[in-house]
C-alpha cells in the first residue's frame, strides 16, 4: 500500500513548516485562496530546489534516491503549461525515462486521446492539449505519488470528467494523487480535502465536512447560498481568518 509521510515541509516565506501523512492510496484535493500556499505545498513535496523537510514515499526518503528510482516514487505536473521547444508529443512522454517503455507510452497516448497529436511538436498545441500531454508524462514512469498543480484548469468539460476518471483509476491502481483545484464543485470527487491558506494547512477533512466548516467560509470569504451556489461574504467578516 502506498504511503506518503512528509515532515517539516517548508518553502522560503510561502510555506511554513508543515507535516503531511497520507497512509492509503487516495485522491487528495488541495484548495485555498490565491497565494495561500497550495502550489508551494505541492512544490515542496515534489522536492523543488530550496524545499526544506523530508518526504518519504513507502518509507523511502525521496531526497536520497537516485533519479532513476526517484521517477518511480513521484512525479510532478506544474501549473505552467509552457514548453519552449518543438518536441513531438510522443518523445515528451518518454523524456527523462532511462529506458523508454513504448507500450506504456502508446497506452497513455490512447488514454488521453493524443494518438493523432503524437507526432506534433508540443509547443504548437493548445493549452488544454498540452495539459493532457503533461498529465500523460506525469503518469509515464508509474510513480506511486502523483502531484498535479491545477490539472483541471484549461480543460473542456469532457476532459474535466475524463481527468477525474483517470485520477480514480490511478487510485484503484494503488497510487496517491495530490491535486490542487479551484472549482469547489469538483471536491465531491475527492477522498480528502486540505485547505491551505496563509502558508499553512488550515483544515484537513473529508470534502463534505470541509465545505460545511465555518472556517472554510471565512477563509474563502464566500458563503453557501444553495446547492453548489456560492455568494460573496459581507466585507465585515473578512479578517476573521482563524
Amino acid at each position: 500500500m502506498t504511503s506518503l509521510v512528509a515532515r517539516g515541509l517548508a518553502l522560503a516565506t510561502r510555506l511554513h513548516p508543515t507535516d503531511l501523512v497520507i497512509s492509503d492510496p487516495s485522491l487528495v484535493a488541495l484548495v485555498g485562496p490565491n497565494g495561500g500556499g497550495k502550489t508551494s505545498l505541492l512544490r515542496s513535496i515534489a522536492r523543488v530546489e530550496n524545499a526544506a523537510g523530508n518526504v518519504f514515499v513507502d518509507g523511502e526518503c525521496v531526497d536520497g534516491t537516485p533519479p532513476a528510482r526517484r521517477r518511480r516514487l513521484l512525479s510532478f505536473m506544474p501549473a505552467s503549461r509552457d514548453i519552449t521547444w518543438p518536441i513531438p508529443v510522443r518523445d515528451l512522454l518518454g523524456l527523462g525515462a532511462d529506458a523508454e517503455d513504448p507500450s506504456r507510452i502508446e497506452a497513455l497516448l490512447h488514454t488521453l486521446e493524443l494518438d493523432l497529436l503524437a507526432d506534433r511538436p508540443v509547443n504548437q498545441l493548445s493549452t488544454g492539449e498540452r495539459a493532457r500531454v503533461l498529465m500523460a508524462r506525469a503518469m509515464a514512469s508509474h510513480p506511486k505519488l502523483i502531484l498535479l498543480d491545477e490539472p483541471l484548469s484549461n480543460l473542456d468539460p469532457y476532459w474535466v470528467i475524463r481527468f477525474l476518471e483517470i485520477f480514480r483509476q490511478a487510485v484503484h491502481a494503488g497510487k496517491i494523487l495530490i491535486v490542487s483545484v479551484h472549482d469547489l464543485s469538483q471536491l465531491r470527487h475527492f477522498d480528502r480535502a486540505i485547505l491551505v491558506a496563509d502558508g499553512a494547512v488550515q483544515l484537513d477533512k473529508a470534502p463534505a465536512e470541509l465545505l460545511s466548516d465555518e472556517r472554510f467560509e471565512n477563509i474563502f470569504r464566500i458563503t453557501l447560498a444553495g446547492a453548489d451556489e456560492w455568494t460573496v461574504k459581507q466585507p465585515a467578516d473578512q479578517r476573521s481568518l482563524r
Partner: protein
Amino acid sequence: MKKIIALAAILAVALHLALPWHSLRAAWDIDPDLGRLLLLELRLPRVLLALGYGAALGVAGAALQAVFANPLASPDISGASTGAALGAVLGGYWLGLTQPLALAACGAAGALAALALLIVLAGRRAEPATLLLAGLAISLAAGAVTSLALALAPSPFAFYDSFDWLMGSFVDRSFGQVAAALLPATVAVLLLLRRASALDLFALGEDVAASSGLRPRKLSLEVIALSAVAVGACVAVAGAIGFVGLIAPVLARKLSRGHPGRAMAPAAIIGALLLVCADLIVRAVPLDRPIPVGVLTALLGTPLFIWLVVGMRRSMTA
C-alpha cells in the same frame, strides 16, 4: 541519424575544399619546405580553428538556449563573445600577456563575467525579450569599454592590430594559438555534451527537473561556465564571430526532434560546417584585401536573425 551522416559528408567535402590535398601534395613534391609551410603554417591551423571554433559556438549556443529556455540565447546575443573580447584586450594590452593560453584564460574570464552580469540583470528564466535587451546592454557596454581600452592602450598600434583580431578571422594564427583556443574549448565542449539528457529534461521546467532529481541551479551554472570557457578561449584567439552560435542550434534542433540538449551534437557539426564554409567564401571572394570572416557571418546572419525574431513574434501572437 541519416541526416547527421549527410551533414558529416558535407563537412568532409568542405574540408576537402579547404585542404585541397592534391595541390598541397604537388607543392610538397616540388618543394618540401614550401609544402610544409603551406600545410602546417597556413592551411591547417586556419581550418582547425574554423572547425573547432564553429563546433564550440554551436554547442555553447545550444547549451545556453537550453538553460535559458530561449531560442534567441547564444554566445553573441548574451554578450559572452563581446565580454570575451574585452577580457582578451585587457589581458593583452593592459596586463601585457602574450602567452596564447593566458589570453584564452582572459577571454574565458570576460565571457564568464558577461554571462554572470546577464543572470544578475535578467535572471535565469527571463522572458526572451528581457534576455535579449539585457544581453544587448552588456554587449554595448563591453564593446564601448573595449574601444576605450584600445584607444588608451600603451601600444599605439592596438587599434590597428585589433581590426584583424576582434572582427573574427582565422588568418595567420600559429599552431600555439590554435591549441590555446581549441584545447580548453574541446574539454568544455565534451563536458557540455555529457549534459545532453539533463538539458533535455530542462525542457519541462526547472521544477520538474528538480523533482526528477536534477539540481537545476548547479546544472545551469556548470553549463554557463563551460560555455564561457569554450567561447572565451576561441574569441581570445580568433575574435568574436556572430550568429553561428545562434543559427547552428536552431538548425540542429530540426535534427534532434526538437530536443534542446540532444541538439548539441548536431549543432557542433553545423557550427563547424558554417565556419569552414564562411572561411572558404572569404578566401574565394576576389577583393584587393581579405575581409574578416566575422564580417561575413554578420552579413549573412542578420537576415536569419530577423527571420527568427519574426517567427517568434508570429508564434506568440498566434
